[in-house]
Each structure stands twice: as C-alpha cells, then as structure tokens.
C-alpha cells in the first residue's frame, strides 16, 4: 500500500495539478454558465477535489469507477480529457460523448470512467458488474457487514491513505469497502440554486477552513517537498488549459443533425 507520506515530488505535483484543474474547471463553469451559453443542469464539484483526487490517485486506468450527477471532478481525477469534457458540457462536436450525454453523463471507457449518472443510486449496481468483469468475484453482491471509514474530505492525504487501505483490501480479494468523506460544496446543488438553506457568509468561511487546495499548500509549506513557486506554476498551467478548453468548446460546432439518429440500434 502506498502511504501519502511516501509520495514523491512528481506524484504530489500530479495530485495537486488534478485538484487545481478540477477547481479551475468548476470555477470557470460557474462564470460561463451565468452567460447562458451552457445548456441544461450543471452540478459543480468545487470544494470536494481532495476526495476525487485522493481516491483516483490510488487507481489506474484499468480500475473502474462509477459516478454521480456531480461528476466533473471524478472525471478529471480519473484522467478524462478536460478539452473533451468542456466540449461535452457545451454540447458540441468533439465532446467526450459527442455532445449526446452532457454534464451528467460524461464517460470514458478507456480511462475506466463508467459514466457520471443522473440517477441517484444508479451507479452502485453497475460497479458490482464491473467487479464481476474484473474477476473480483469474492466481493460480489455482499451488501452487509461492509467495512467503512470516515475521513476529512478536505484533506487529500487523509483520503489518499483511506483509499489505499480499501484498495489493498479489494485487490487482495477481501471484498468491497466504503469511505465516507465529510465535505461541503462551494456552490449550490445545481447552478442557479438560490441556496436559501445556507447561513450568510457560510461559503466564505468554508472557503477559508475547508479548501483542500489551501490545505495542500499549507502542508507543503510546513516541510513538504513542493515549493510555492512550483505550485504557482501548476496553477498557471491549469488556468491556461481551462481557458483554452472554454475557447475551443465555444468554437466547436454543434453536433450535426444526423447525430440525433446515430448510436442507437434502430430509430424511426
């Protein structure tokens, strides 16, 4: 099992880059959605990056994940192409699902990302099947007595280590586990949610106390292997790539009319 304390510089940079990429992707979507150019419902993952990245840094492309309606972070953490994701969210040609899935259905089988899923609870049965397909038969269909642990969802290192333990358990054939990662959201349930259920300044306080990127940086400053200059360079890189993703997505043509009738075995 890989412990977060033993992660070398390049792996820590990789993890931070993915977290920052998710943050920038979502912060930028928050701005772009307000322009009215992005169709449909969008559920932002900002604030929860340490969970997706802490989990997926323990996995490889041959491991499968299922996701939820709030799936952008899971997609990026699993390695989905952000340019293709942005086009998908804009409903354009070249999107990861050719514009036919949208924000809530981004998938990439080559990365083991079996799809965001707009049905709450729709994913777990599919994960059971992926486990069967991966010959993890020992754990199939075991719904009870599953070990679970609770972690601080704003702490990348804590999530990574918890995931290391459950992945080791799964790979050894000892079956499924659950991780409950405690976290909040920086934005509403969906873009446009008035969030009347939240206290005044709640989010501003959370952005101070529960920002996984700030926590990651603080940890590095306290003697971690990454310098502020190195982290700043990653930030600049992420901002530039997301900028390019938005420019390319806006420039991409919508899917051709004939696409309405493709990818389904018969149509009328």
């Amino acid at each position: 099992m890989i412990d977060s304390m033993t992660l070398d510089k390049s792996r820590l940079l990789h993890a931070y880059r993915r977290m920052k990429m998710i943050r920038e992707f979502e912060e930028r979507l928050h701005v772009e959605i307000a322009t009215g150019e992005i169709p449909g419902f969008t559920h932002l993952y900002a604030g929860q990056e340490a969970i997706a990245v802490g989990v997926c840094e323990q996995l490889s492309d041959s491991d499968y994940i299922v996701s939820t309606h709030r799936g952008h972070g899971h997609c990026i953490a699993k390695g989905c192409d952000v340019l293709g994701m942005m086009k998908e969210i804009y409903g354009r040609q070249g999107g990861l699902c050719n514009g036919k899935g949208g924000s809530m259905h981004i998938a990439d089988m080559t990365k083991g990302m079996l799809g965001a899923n707009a049905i709450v609870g729709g994913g777990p049965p599919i994960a059971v099947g992926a486990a069967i397909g991966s010959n993890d038969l020992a754990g199939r269909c075991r719904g009870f007595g599953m070990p679970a642990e609770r972690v601080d969802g704003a702490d990348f290192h804590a999530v990574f280590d918890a995931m290391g333990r459950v992945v080791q358990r799964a790979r050894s054939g000892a079956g499924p586990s659950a991780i409950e990662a405690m976290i909040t959201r920086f934005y509403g349930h969906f873009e446009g949610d008035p969030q009347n259920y939240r206290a005044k300044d709640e989010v501003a306080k959370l952005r101070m106390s529960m920002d996984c990127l700030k926590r990651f940086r603080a940890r590095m400053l306290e003697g971690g292997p990454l310098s502020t200059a190195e982290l700043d360079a990653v930030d600049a890189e992420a901002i530039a790539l997301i900028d390019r993703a938005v420019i390319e997505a806006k420039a991409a043509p919508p899917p051709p009319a004939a696409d309405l009738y493709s990818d389904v075995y018969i149509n009328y």
Partner: protein
Amino acid sequence: MPQLTMRDALNQALHQEMARDERIIVLGEDVSGGAGGTSGEREASGGIFGVTKGLLPRFGEGRVLDTPISESAIIGAAAGAALAGLRPVAELMFADFVGVCLDQIYNQIAKFRYMFGGRSTCPVVIRMAMGAGMNMGPQHSQTIYSLLTAIPGLKIVIPSNAYDAKGLLIQAIRDDDPVIFLEHKALYPRKGEVPEEAYVVPFGEANLLREGEHVTVVAIARMVPFAERAVDALAKEGITCDLIDPRTTSPMDEETIIESVEGTGRLVIVDESPPRCGMACDIAATIAQKAFRSLKRPIIQVTAPHTPVPFAPALERQYVPGPARIEAAIREAMKDE
C-alpha cells in the same frame, strides 16, 4: 430432426454459446436453483423453469452466478459487467419484476451507447418469463412487452416456438446491443423441430406461418399457436389467412405486415397485452399510416382487457384471448362478404 421443447431449445442455446465464448456469464435468482442454499446441492433444479439446467456444473461458479433477490443488482451488475468486457445473460425470473429494476434497464442499459456518443456498447441479454395462463396471479402473469418496446435502445424478442427460441437467443447473445428476451411460460413445454447445431434467427424478420387470401392475422407469443388453431379451422370453410408472427417487436418487420394487408385488405391483431398503448395499437397505427387505402374493413384488435391479470382460473381464462375469440374476430373481418 430432433423434437425439443422450447425450454430445452433455450437450454441448448445457452450451453452452446457459453462453450463458444467464455466471456458469456449467466446471472440471476436461482439460476442453479440450490447454490448458496443449505441443501448442499450445487445445482438443485437449473432455475425454476429449468432453462439454465446443467450450466453450473459445466461452467462453474465463476460464470454461473446465483444472486441474491435484488433485481436492480442483477441487472445493474449485468450492465457493469458488459461495460467491463463480458457478455452477460441475466435472468429476471418473472417479467413482472421489471418494475423493481426498470431504472437499470431504461435509464442505464438502454442509453449507454447513445448517451456515451457511440463509444461503448452494452451487450446484455435479459431473459424473463412472462404471460398468463398458469393462475400465478396479477404480479406473476403480465406480458409487459408493450411497455418495453416503447423504450429506444432496446431490442425486444418474443419467440413463439422452440426453433425460433434457440435461434433468437443465440442471435441475442451475439448481438452488441441490449436485448430483452421474453419467454412465455405456457410455451416452455411446446415442442418443435430444432437442429442440433447452433444457428441464428435474425431480428426484424417476421415469420409467415400460414398463407391465405382473405385476412391478415398478426399474433405474438402464445397467441401464435392459438391463432394457428383458429386459422386452420376456418381454412376448412374456405376462409384463408396470412398468419404473421413478428418474432421481434423492436425492430419490427413492418414490411411483411404491410405487404400482406395490401393483399388481403383485412387485419386482425392478436395480443395478450391490455388494449391501451399496446402492440396491437402500434401495429394498427402502422397499417393506418402506411396501408390505409388497402383496408376494406376496420382493423380488429383481439387483446386482453384493460385490467390486471386475475388469479381465479375462470377469470384468467376469460382474460386471455383464445382460439374462439380469434376465430370470431376473423369472421367479423369477413362480414362484408
């Protein structure tokens, strides 16, 4: 040629395909009928209808999975296993249980290929036993195919005899798209000639079982043998019919029905489903749109009533359209003569 029951023809298809392709797995409640129980028997029955008999001892627990009673888990697991490269044949036992796992069928399996922009397929076969006639009551007797046929992305297969059952199931297993395979319980013991070797019956090709000049009769599943009896009885009086079994309702072979109606000008549709938004309506609408000017008489639909399937044998007999009702409908269609 050997005579097999539809049950044994389906069983043979599963054995032959599983031997051919090791990516095929079978999963469902009691598919081995005993594994996981306290009897110590690894295979007690081969499924409650015997269709999966012998698969567990031959192919092992890694490929024949006796699951807990959770239809969503069975169908969702089949979906995930298909995405991960296997070719699952899931069994739902009774078609009525589709309600428990409909989300996995119509929101997940049916949509993957389209929703992911054509970058994945979901080669799942979902077998389910359907139909009235065995006094199994309202929650174990429905036909349900009308509801499933309405869902884009699924192929809907409904065999009426042993030969078709084997060839259609093999085609379903080899198909890259999700297939719902509906087996009428009353047809399991129905015998027919079945070749020993593997073969496929293609989807979207109706079976013309009788040829005649006066009336086109379209029938599905158990209604096919009932319609055969009615059509054969009337032939002795000189009333002859085309009898068409669509075999698959999605895709539907519209051409065969249209061509027949262009010849006869009269159409009787026999459907064990309730009358509203059902297959009979769907076929009638197709003919009204595409062969209206060929019709000499209004289309006649012979269906079950718009009620759940009753338990009491006397009521259930009344519910299921039988040869007498079909015969009466054909005579009605001939009234102008």
